[in-house]
């Protein structure tokens, strides 16, 4: 076992342990942090495989984006610091069953096909190649999915703005306090005029 394999096993063990902790801890914020470490482990694995671009994208998207989003939503929930109650034993039993089934399934797949050692050299994809491929209209180009995804994201963004925007007219939820304020104001002014009279 050479140094590279040792590093691989260390990273894998780290990922597995943090992954298990993420689903077993009963504090929701800690769960998010363990998930984060697990995702960082995946990025480390990419670095180990020397696909640095994918590793960096993994960190940007999952760690910097999604986990931060999850943490923000945890902050906005109530009782985020309270330990959740233990799941009932029946649920534990079925969860364990599902895990065992999954393990057996994967074991079966591996034992049937095994890991083949590829004779190919580790591929070298420079960043500019990735960029060219992404925007090429040729045979192997990804311009269509790229544009489709960008349209999807634009749609999501517009949707977010629409949801977040305050609807000034026709929304009873907003209009009512305004009307109440107006009424108080008129009431007040009429009183003063009475006093003046």
């Amino acid at each position, binding site marked *: 076992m050479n*140094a590279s394999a040792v590093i691989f096993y260390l990273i894998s063990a780290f990922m597995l342990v943090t992954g298990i902790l993420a689903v077993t801890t009963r*504090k929701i*914020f*800690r769960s998010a*942090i363990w998930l*984060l470490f697990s995702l*960082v482990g995946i990025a480390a694995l990419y670095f180990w495989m020397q696909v*640095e*671009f994918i590793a*960096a*994208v993994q*960190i*940007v998207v999952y*760690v*910097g*984006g999604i*986990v*931060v989003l999850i*943490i*923000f939503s945890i*902050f906005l929930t109530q009782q*985020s*610091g309270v330990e959740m109650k233990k799941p009932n034993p029946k649920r534990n039993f079925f969860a364990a069953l599902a895990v065992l089934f999954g393990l057996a399934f994967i074991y079966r797949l591996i034992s049937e096909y095994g890991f083949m050692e590829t004779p190919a050299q580790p591929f070298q994809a*420079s*960043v*500019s190649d990735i960029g060219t491929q992404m925007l090429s209209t040729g045979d192997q180009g990804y311009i269509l999915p790229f544009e489709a995804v960008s349209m999807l994201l634009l749609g999501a963004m517009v949707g977010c703005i629409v949801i977040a925007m305050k609807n000034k007219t026709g929304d009873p939820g907003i209009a009512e306090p305004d009307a109440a304020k107006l009424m108080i104001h008129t009431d007040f002014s009429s009183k003063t005029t009475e006093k003046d009279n």
Partner: protein
Amino acid sequence: MFSLEGITNSIQNWLYQTFEPWFALTMECLIVILLAISLFAILGLVLVLMERKVAAHIQIRLGPNRVGPGGMFQTVADTIKLLMKEGLTPDAADKFLFNLAPFVVMIVAMLLLAPIAFAKGFQIWDINIGVLFISAVSSLSVIGILMAGWASNNKYSLLGAMRSGAQIVSYELSAGLSVLSIVVLTGSLRLSDIIASQENGWWLLKGHIPVIISFVIFLIAVTAETNRAPFDMAEAESELTAGFHTEYSGMRFALFFLAEYINIFIVCAIGATLFLGGWMPFHIGHWDGFNHIMDFIPSSIWFMGKTFFLIFLIMWFRWTFPRLRIDQLLELEWKYLLPISLFNLVLVTVMAIMGWHF
């Protein structure tokens, strides 16, 4: 001529000739770790003193001048004081995360050190996605801050952490876009390529106005990302006592403090690398005689000079500008910096395609 490249090469050769490869590699790792940690310690001491002195002179004061000649050992004394202090952990805090957070922040700062070229041939890891690596890893530091804020079980800390999160996530965009303009001009993400592309002049000088705009946006965005005044919403002494590190004391507080200054150094080093040519001496086009004279100044001095100039600029910002409110802060990013930097990126792209830069 003095050069760090020769020293590192001779050390490497000697290690690989006298020992087994694996042992030599381990030794190299240890040397790098030692250098990084001592750099951190020295930077922490120097930058804190520099900040206090710059602040004092800008405010027509003298600053620390009691400990040592001209107050030189003031920060040493402060560090010793912080080391001696008791590190308290609040009772209701999430103890594990509370103790982990300062180290997360510190480790992220250390990771960012890897791709920076300190001098010619003096770089820990010349990774082929250098710039992307930096922007990816620097987004991790927000996790440490969120962790600290939440684990302290204190509403000030939580508010500070939330603000810091919103701030870092949104300012990362314009920082990334301004960095992208240099990447577009260079055509490479590798930091050594970016430095090599500035052999006939720094990008700030040969990139016309669009690069100057992106330089200014970069400076604003990194000031916000390092949570410094005028964008110090995360700490906000007057509103949140100390924000996310309200509950920290002793050495753990010192780690946060140190990480802040290390981050300033790193972002300024990156700014110097991208816009001011890193260790590349001041060259003008094909004036070979002039360029040759400039080469006599060692590259490490060029790098440090540029970096400390940018650090001085950021300190100058801090002690001049009034603080922003949180809504003004987000408005500045989303209504001003982001549209301007997007438009600017288009300009830079046109410039790069037409080859209008020098």
